[in-house]
């Protein structure tokens, strides 16, 4: 379909639309899989993702695929929030600590009264606060996320301190609060209904549902449009009548609520909460986001990119395990990949600027 407009009408051509940058991330994912397949064939004599041994009646090695997705799902949920914050032109260093403190507080409201006929040895509150319906810890968890996010947002939007500093403060404070909550003791023995949330492939389903939800929100709502607009040109957005400060509070709140959801899923999956939970998750989440093509200078990127970025992340970790390489290498390579993704983004920007 083509349509002309303007005097002398140039053609409006759907094909002239620039290729979506998500394709580049997708090709990178394929390339990395191919590299691991090749290395696997050379070093291990077996396939990375395909079911070469024909143990199961499937094309793919389903077990490995499941592990790849499962191990990135929880941090992936956090990355959905990081994506929105970074598109907004900000940064959030607090979600890892928000996971810690939310897991601790939420788990306190999800405990059973009796373990094997004895009183719960890890009880935080008295018996009246035991065996509560699952909705209670869920609401408590969401409130934790909202409180942390609103504080982040208000600090950034109204005191004008850089997001890096504001969320660094939250990172340290929330971690402290997580340790203070039970004097450093782990909190365990959740109710069955709470424990069910994070079992099996549930984290993946929750990640997928949230990813689709926020993909649609970013693409088709005013919220999404304003997030991109502020990240692209904050001053122009302000002059155009967008309520920039209010919107920032909203985005940071959503990011922290996503961290709180990750905390619920993680503590449910592990059946326990510890003050150190979620340590460094924010960096992994930012890494997934950046690998997924979200520009650290704001205004560009997508949820789809971040989901692909999280898969790249998962494939690399799985691939290293598959090749039986030390876990230490994983972290070193992670660091290289993060810096590489940012360098690539800078290079793309320079090239785009040179074309003008």
């Amino acid at each position, binding site marked *: 379909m083509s349509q002309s407009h*303007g005097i002398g009408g140039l053609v409006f051509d759907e094909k002239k639309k620039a290729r979506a940058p998500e394709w580049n991330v997708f090709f990178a994912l394929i390339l990395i899989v191919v590299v691991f397949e090749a290395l696997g064939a050379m070093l291990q004599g077996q396939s990375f993702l395909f079911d070469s041994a024909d143990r199961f009646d499937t094309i793919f090695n389903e077990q490995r695929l499941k592990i790849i997705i499962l191990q990135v799902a929880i941090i992936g949920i956090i990355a959905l929030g990081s994506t929105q914050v970074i598109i907004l032109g900000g940064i959030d260093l607090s979600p890892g600590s928000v996971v810690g403190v939310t897991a601790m507080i939420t788990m306190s409201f999800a405990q059973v009264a009796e373990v094997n006929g004895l009183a719960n040895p890890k009880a935080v509150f008295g018996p009246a606060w035991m065996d509560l319906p699952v909705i209670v810890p869920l609401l408590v968890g969401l409130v934790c996320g909202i409180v942390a996010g609103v504080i982040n947002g208000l600090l950034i939007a109204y005191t004008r301190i850089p997001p890096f500093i504001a969320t660094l403060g939250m990172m340290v404070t929330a971690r402290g609060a997580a340790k203070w909550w039970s004097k450093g003791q782990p909190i365990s023995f959740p109710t069955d209904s709470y424990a069910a949330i994070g079992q099996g492939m549930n984290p993946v389903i929750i990640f997928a549902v949230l990813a689709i939800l926020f993909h649609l929100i970013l693409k088709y709502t005013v919220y999404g449009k304003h997030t991109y607009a502020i990240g692209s040109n904050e001053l*122009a957005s302000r002059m155009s*009548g967008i309520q920039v400060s209010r919107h920032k509070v909203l985005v940071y709140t959503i990011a922290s609520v996503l961290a709180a959801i990750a905390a619920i899923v993680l503590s449910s999956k592990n059946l326990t909460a510890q003050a150190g939970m979620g340590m460094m998750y924010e960096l992994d989440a930012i890494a997934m986001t950046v690998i997924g093509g979200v520009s650290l200078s704001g205004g560009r990127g997508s949820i789809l990119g971040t989901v692909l970025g999280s898969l790249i992340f998962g494939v690399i970790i799985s691939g290293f395990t598959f090749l039986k390489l030390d876990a230490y290498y994983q972290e070193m390579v992670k660091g290289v990949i993060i810096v590489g993704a940012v360098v690539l983004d800078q290079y793309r920007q320079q090239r785009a600027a040179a074309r003008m």
Partner: protein
Amino acid sequence: MLDYSNSEVVLETRDLTKHYGGVHALEGANFKIHKGEHVAIMGDNGAGKSTFVRQITAVEQRTRGDVILGGQSVHFGSPIEAREAGIETVFQNLALADDLDVPSNLFLGREKIKFNLGPFSILDNKAMREATMAGLVKTGVKIPNILNPIRNMSGGQRQCVAIARTAAFHSKLTIMDEPTAALGVQETAQVENIIRTLKEQGEPLILISHNMRQVFDLMDRIVVFRRGRICANLHVSDTDPQDVVAYITGAKTGEEFPEAR
């Protein structure tokens, strides 16, 4: 030479004044623009041109005086209110978001929505696309694909997008603050063509410009600011560039503005 003094007054300011503490940036500005009229505002840097525009568009709140739009005295609380009342401003630094496409930029801050869900209201992308096309046709702007981010467009095209907002929203008055200051020759011509198109359509316009040729080519009237006061009100046909420079530098002052001396 057309005389607009008998046609309807679109915007009038009476004794419009702005003090920043002890600095009198704008002092007692009495100004009128009529339907269909294109008025240039000229003056040295710091003469009060931009301050004048900022009071009209409510980017700042005035110290004193009246702004009368279409016969009604108005007190806008913000630039958004001014825009909703029909005063469309093309700012000196382009108020555009580079990563968004043309319709998103045209409708920035006033998106069309399908149904209202507060901040999560669903966008009506189709309606915005169609209105964008219509607006571009009206201004004669040519853009290969309006759905590409404007980052990759030329300075002229971007300026045209900024100006096309005016046409898309049927504003009562357009204000342009040095729209061609950062543009090349060809792009300047493009913007000037849009100004001519607006002229043909009878849309009133206030243009802040340092470009003498542009002003004499396109405008009906020149209002000169000096040290925060209006010091001349000249019809283009009654004056020449040297004359205007004399007013700008202070060598001459209009007879009807004794306090500006």
